[in-house]
Structure formats: structure tokens, C-alpha cells
């Protein structure tokens, strides 16, 4: 199965490059675009692991909807380049060291794990493994309660976002005085 391996290495390199781009690029807009690359290549990896429904959800929900939200906010607050840290604080110099420590720890956990199935291609699964039908039937039968809880969580998050980001001073704008003619909205001056 050399095709699978080639695809894995291409997609893995793309995912790593996207992740590095998110961390290393200075402009937030380019960071979001790098994350889109990362998410799409990760969807390819999901397909290699026979998770077709999750790959589709990743592309549609993440790379489609959530990233559009990010782009809107970057455009709204005006993504500026992050200024270099003027003072070399402790956390800047030791942060990558902490990250490397986490990586070494994870590698130890992988090497020292007693799971023998790690070095195989995984269990034999049928053709419908990870298909929308099977995932949907699991969500509606065995995992019905987490599914409903997730939907309520999404509702609460949507209401919370509206409460957080609403315009608080919008009510204080005074309506036009009754005696005066309100400014006609149609007169649009075009200056060249």
C-alpha cells in the first residue's frame, strides 16, 4: 500500500507546516489561513483512518464555518502584526523549552506503552466503518445523551457570545427631536 504511505507523508507534512505557520507567522490573518491548510490536510488524515464522516465535518464545519468566524473577527479588529516583545521575559525564553519537555514526555509515553496493536494497521473493520450512517445511528442510540448535551452547549455558547459582544452603548443614542426635521437618509453625496 505505497499509495497510502505517500498520502500520509504528504498530508502529515502539510499538517505540520500549517501548525508551524500558525505559531510562527506574525500577521493574525496569515495565521488563520495557515490553520485552514492544517485543517484540510488533517481531514485527509482522517480519511486515511477511515473516518469519512469526521473528515467531511472537519472540512465543512471547521475549515468552512469556524474559520470564516475567525476571518470576520480579524477583519473587525484589524489584524495588526504582533510587535516583538520588547523585554525578553522569562516565559519567552522558557516557553519552547516547556513545549519540548511535553514532546519528550509524549514520546516516552508512546515508546513505553504496552499496546501491541500500535505497530499494526489496526483492527479489521468493515466497509461502512465511520460512514455517516453508522456514526448517526451511534449518536441517536448509544450516545444520545452526550449528543443532546452538546446541542444545549452550542445553544448556551451562542447566547453567551451575543451577550458578550453586544453593543452596550447602543441604547443611549438619542432619537431625533420631534420638532426638527430628521436628516434625510437618501441624500448621499458623492464626492469625486
Amino acid at each position, binding site marked *: *500500500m505505497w499509495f497510502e*504511505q505517500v498520502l*500520509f507523508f504528504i498530508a*502529515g507534512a502539510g*499538517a*505540520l507546516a500549517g*501548525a508551524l505557520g*500558525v*505559531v510562527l507567522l506574525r500577521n*493574525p490573518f496569515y*495565521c488563520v489561513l495557515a*490553520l485552514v491548510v*492544517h485543517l484540510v490536510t*488533517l481531514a485527509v488524515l482522517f480519511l*486515511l*483512518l477511515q*473516518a469519512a*464522516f*469526521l473528515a467531511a*465535518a472537519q472540512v465543512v*464545519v*471547521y475549515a468552512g*464555518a*469556524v474559520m470564516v*468566524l*475567525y476571518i470576520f*473577527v480579524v477583519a473587525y*479588529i484589524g489584524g495588526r502584526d*504582533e510587535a516583538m516583545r520588547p523585554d525578553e521575559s522569562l516565559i519567552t525564553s522558557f*516557553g*519552547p523549552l*516547556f*513545549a519540548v519537555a*511535553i*514532546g519528550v514526555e509524549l*514520546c516516552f509515553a*508512546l515508546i513505553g506503552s504496552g499496546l501491541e496493536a500500535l*505497530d*499494526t*494497521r*489496526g*483492527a*479489521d*473493520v468493515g466497509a461502512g*466503518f465511520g460512514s455517516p450512517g*453508522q*456514526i448517526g445511528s*451511534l*449518536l441517536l442510540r448509544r*450516545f444520545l445523551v452526550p449528543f443532546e448535551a*452538546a446541542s444545549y*452547549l*452550542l445553544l448556551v*455558547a451562542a447566547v*453567551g*457570545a451575543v*451577550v*458578550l*459582544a453586544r453593543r*452596550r452603548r447602543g441604547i443611549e443614542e438619542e432619537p431625533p427631536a420631534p420638532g426638527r426635521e430628521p436628516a434625510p437618509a437618501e441624500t448621499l453625496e458623492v464626492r469625486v
Partner: protein
Amino acid sequence: MDVVWFLVLSAFIFVIGAAGVIVRRDPLVILLCLELMLNAGNLALIAFARMHGGQAGQVFALIVMVIAACEVVIGLGIIVAMYRNRLQIDVDEMTELRG
């Protein structure tokens, strides 16, 4: 492909995300790096689901995606509120919880 390759890749992505969360200062980029970490967890979950031949791990990854979407929405709402209140968009400057 052996399952362990996917786990190694997931560990690398997690480490890159963690380094970004520690080093970067823009809260928007910190949210992006949190997404990286959650996605690394998703990749590991799906790899383990493939290894065991069960689909519960995939459902779990789906729930993680829902949690990530909620976190993004709330985080972006906080960033927009910071911008509205003319606060500096920098996590080092945000030292008070009082709005």
C-alpha cells in the same frame, strides 16, 4: 500505515500548539493554537478508534469538535468585547478580570 505514525504526528501537532499558547501574546492566535491542540487530540482519538475497530472514539472526536466550536465562539466574543471597550488586545496587558 501503522497507527503509531498517526500518534507521533498528533504528538508533534500538540507540542507545536502548546508552544504557541505559551509564546504568543495575541489572544486570537492563542485561540488558534488551542484549536491546534484540540485537533491533535482528535487525531489521536480517531487513530485509537481505528486501532480498536470501534466507532466510539469517532463520536468522541465529534463531541470535541462541538466543544471547540463553543470555545471559539466565546473566545471571539470576549475579544470583540475587549475591542469595544478599547482595551489593548494583548494577554500580557490583561491582568484584571474586572470589565
